[in-house]
């Protein structure tokens, strides 16, 4: 028992040291294997690091200029359009489902219905996209833009259903009843009560879908082949095919900048992100 | 550490079980305890009563050792425990939300403290069963259940059994009845009183409900903004409030302001005779309970007699609450429904109200603004 007491005494006395011992290892790990790599990426994008990782101390923005050339801007544009279509498509598919689970579904089914959406959420896109390849091959739809769009919605759908459901689940059902008793039709009630109250859920889902969809690689690459180019496929090619790390780094930093700006706007307007 | 272990016992049969001496506790800018001095006696049912946020829980947690005071001393059974952790103090605590361990059965919950004290297993079983009997929970039925399989009132009983089974010197209870329905709450009030008398443990009971405090307590400390406003028996704090706050917080009261001159207060609607030793010429406020005011003929020979129009009558079963306007002041009067004139009262009528000097709950000096 006395070792316990001395341990407790120690924790009391050296609070900061204990904090360091507890929080230090995870933070140091992330510093090395997560944050340092981003720093290195920034250095690459400005040309500070040359071939074979030699530090050159030559500052240049030429890689950014290259990344902002018309062909690349068009890719950026294509990616944003694709991500936007994906987001709208998945809202249209997800909202009724989320509403159904949260408000209408019989209680005993509820858990099963939610779990059935959570399971695909955690399965890697590679596997789920491969699953689609079977169907598209049968339908002779491989390497079409339609296939890419369907694939994107297919993969991202759970990311939209879950935050929407979480939001609608919290919705006080008596508000709907109050609206009915005040003479509103179900449609009016939906437009004036449910929809405005579920805005945070729509916003969360939009962030969870839109932001990663811009950089999506697996779907356009597997289902679109060479016919669809996005930031994701471009990055992949620059790195793993052409080994043009500098331009790739600049492109990636631009992408991250877009992501961060979107997130900051979101946080300011809506607040916490639910995952 | 060493020094604390050897802290002196003044006597093992000390009269004061809990002594708080000059306790100060701050949370940032908030002063949750402001130089609190309280002595709680052996076998006493002692309540800390005050509105929400007044600092009751903080005091209880300081006694328990869950919070360390910034200044002051905590003495339990004559022993300075200010720097001891909770598990080295001889206390039991019933938490506001009970804090029953959800992963343990009722039996394991109650046995928890005994196991830590390394009692033999058959002794543990005996004590746990006795504790369950004490709180009227048949052990054969409930010992094996999980807390989630109990009703609110039953969880309450288990929490009390768990806190008492180690036979602590003091049992601390933080608004334990707050979450219960009115009916069960009233029942549990009597139960708590019965349990306290049975085991004879000192109870320190935190509540914001004056009804609970008045019914159960031997003595009450009224807490306001971290300070002790008054310590006294239920009778004392109700009939002889020492401050305007106490008069207002406990029971209901009419308040009349005015200047005190020669044993009478000049108010906006007339002179009111009072009994008070406050200096002449001071601005004061009188506190007068609605049930102390007589109406109609009964008010005839009162030392203070006024007439006013009845603004409103509310029927409450045993009493009528009658609001009477005296000039710009409305006075609340409780008239028993058995009062001979009760049936004749009507809104809009003129009625006489009256009371004698000394009927007031108190006269309090107003601080100059």
């Amino acid at each position, binding site marked *: 028992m006395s070792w316990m007491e001395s341990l407790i005494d120690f924790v009391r006395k050296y609070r900061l040291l204990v904090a360091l011992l507890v929080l230090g290892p995870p933070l140091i*790990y992330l510093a090395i294997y997560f944050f340092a790599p981003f720093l*290195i990426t920034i250095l690459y994008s400005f040309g500070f690091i040359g071939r074979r990782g030699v530090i050159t101390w030559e500052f240049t923005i030429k890689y950014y200029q290259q990344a902002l050339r018309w062909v690349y801007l068009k890719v950026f544009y294509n990616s944003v359009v694709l991500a936007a279509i994906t987001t709208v498509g998945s809202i249209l598919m997800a909202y009724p489902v989320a509403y159904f689970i949260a408000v209408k579904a019989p209680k005993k089914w509820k858990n099963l219905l939610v779990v059935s959406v959570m399971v695909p959420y955690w*399965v890697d896109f590679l*596997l789920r996209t491969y699953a689609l390849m079977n169907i598209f091959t049968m339908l002779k739809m491989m390497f079409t833009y339609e296939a890419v769009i369907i694939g994107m919605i297919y993969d991202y759908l759970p990311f939209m259903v879950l935050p929407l459901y979480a939001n609608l689940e919290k919705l006080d059902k008596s508000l709907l009843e109050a609206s009915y008793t005040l003479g509103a039709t179900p449609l009016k009630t939906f437009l004036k009560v449910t929809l405005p109250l579920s805005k945070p859920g729509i916003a969360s889902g939009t962030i969870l879908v839109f932001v990663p969809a811009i950089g999506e690689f697996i779907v356009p690459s597997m289902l679109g*082949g060479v016919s669809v180019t996005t930031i994701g496929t471009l990055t992949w090619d620059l790195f793993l095919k052409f080994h043009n790390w500098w331009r790739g780094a600049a492109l990636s930093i631009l992408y991250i900048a877009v992501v961060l700006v979107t997130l900051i706007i979101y946080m300011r307007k809506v607040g916490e992100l639910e995952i | 550490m060493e020094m604390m272990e050897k802290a002196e016992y003044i006597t093992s049969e000390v009269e004061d079980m809990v002594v708080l001496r000059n306790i100060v506790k701050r949370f940032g800018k908030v002063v949750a305890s402001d130089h609190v001095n309280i002595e709680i006696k052996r076998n006493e049912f002692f309540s800390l009563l005050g509105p929400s946020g007044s600092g009751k829980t903080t005091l209880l947690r300081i006694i328990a050792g869950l919070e360390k005071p910034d200044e002051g001393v905590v003495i339990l059974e004559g022993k300075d425990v200010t720097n001891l952790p909770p598990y080295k103090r001889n206390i039991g605590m019933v938490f506001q939300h009970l804090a029953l361990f959800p992963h343990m059965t009722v039996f394991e919950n109650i046995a928890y403290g005994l196991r830590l004290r390394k009692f033999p297993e058959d002794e543990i079983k005996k004590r746990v069963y006795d504790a369950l009997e004490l709180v009227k929970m048949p052990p054969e039925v409930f010992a094996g259940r999980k807390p989630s399989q109990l009703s609110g009132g039953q969880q309450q009983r288990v929490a009390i059994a768990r806190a008492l089974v180690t036979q602590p010197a003091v049992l601390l209870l933080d608004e334990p009845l707050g979450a219960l329905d009115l009916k069960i709450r009233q029942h549990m009030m009597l139960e708590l009183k019965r349990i306290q008398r049975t085991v004879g443990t000192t109870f320190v009971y935190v509540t914001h409900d004056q009804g609970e405090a008045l019914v159960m307590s031997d003595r009450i400390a009224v807490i306001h903004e971290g300070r002790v406003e008054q310590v006294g028996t239920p009778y004392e704090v109700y009939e002889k409030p020492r401050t305007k706050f106490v008069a207002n917080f406990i029971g209901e009261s009419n308040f009349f302001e005015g200047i005190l001159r020669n044993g009478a207060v000049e108010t906006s609607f007339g002179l009111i005779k009072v009994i008070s030793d406050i200096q002449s010429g001071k601005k004061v406020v009188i506190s007068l309970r609605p049930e102390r005011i007589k109406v109609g003929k009964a008010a005839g020979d009162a030392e203070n007699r006024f007439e006013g129009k009845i603004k409103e009558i509310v029927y409450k079963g045993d009493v009528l609450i009658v609001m009477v306007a005296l000039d710009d002041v409305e006075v609340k009067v409780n008239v028993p429904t058995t009062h001979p004139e009760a049936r004749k009262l009507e809104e809009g009528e003129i009625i006489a109200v009256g009371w004698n000097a000394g009927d007031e709950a108190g006269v309090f000096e107003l601080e100059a603004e």
Partner: protein
Amino acid sequence: MSIRDKVMGLYSAFVYAFLYVPILIVIVFSFNESRTLGHFTGFSLKWYQVLLEDKVVWVAFYNSLNVAVITTLVSLLLGTLSAYGMIRLDIGGKGAIDSLLYVPIIIPEIAEALSLLLFYKFSGYDLGWLTVLLGHIAFDISFVYVVVRARLAGFDRSLEEASLTLGANEVQTFLKITLPLSMPGIIAAALIAFTLSFDDFIKTAFTTGPGFQTLPLIIWSQSARGGVGPELNALTTVIMAISMTIAYIYARLTMEKQ
């Protein structure tokens, strides 16, 4: 149920079908006797037989499992430490540390993957098992942190205080109350960490080197340019069965909390 509700129910059924039919098709055709897609000519286990005899698949399976298990253990330790520290320690700057721990979840995987590659190239790592593993851990720490922290945050502090007043010191309280009660959260975190690592593709693709292959990499390289086939269906079925089972247990655990 009104007509409107029925329509909504039907629509939902359609969406669930959309989510699960493609997966079912993969499973069904992994048992198809012939190679022809779209015609089920008879039940057969021969493609699983092929898998079983494929040495490359076995090595990749071992690699996937190896990385996933080590990733789970390390990220569980580091993630739980940080969650516990953030909830219990009384120190300044918590908001900032919390944000830092969240960043890996928010940053898109491909951006993280390529920065890891640049980092490895710059620091002279040989790409392979170690580089894949280090990257997976970095990502998983944050997920473990979020899951365990959510569990601890929903934890009534007065349970621990009750234990203290009943005579248990801090260490006993941690062992008897805190740890058992946060166990579901820790198990859920372990399951998530495992799936995220086991079927990960992008980060693995960027940080692996010649000679170190995992199961998703096999699927990728063989399915490139539309190469769908029953062997791949069988392999995908196996990986999905593992991932989905674990995800299912995780989902059940999380739902029970409510």
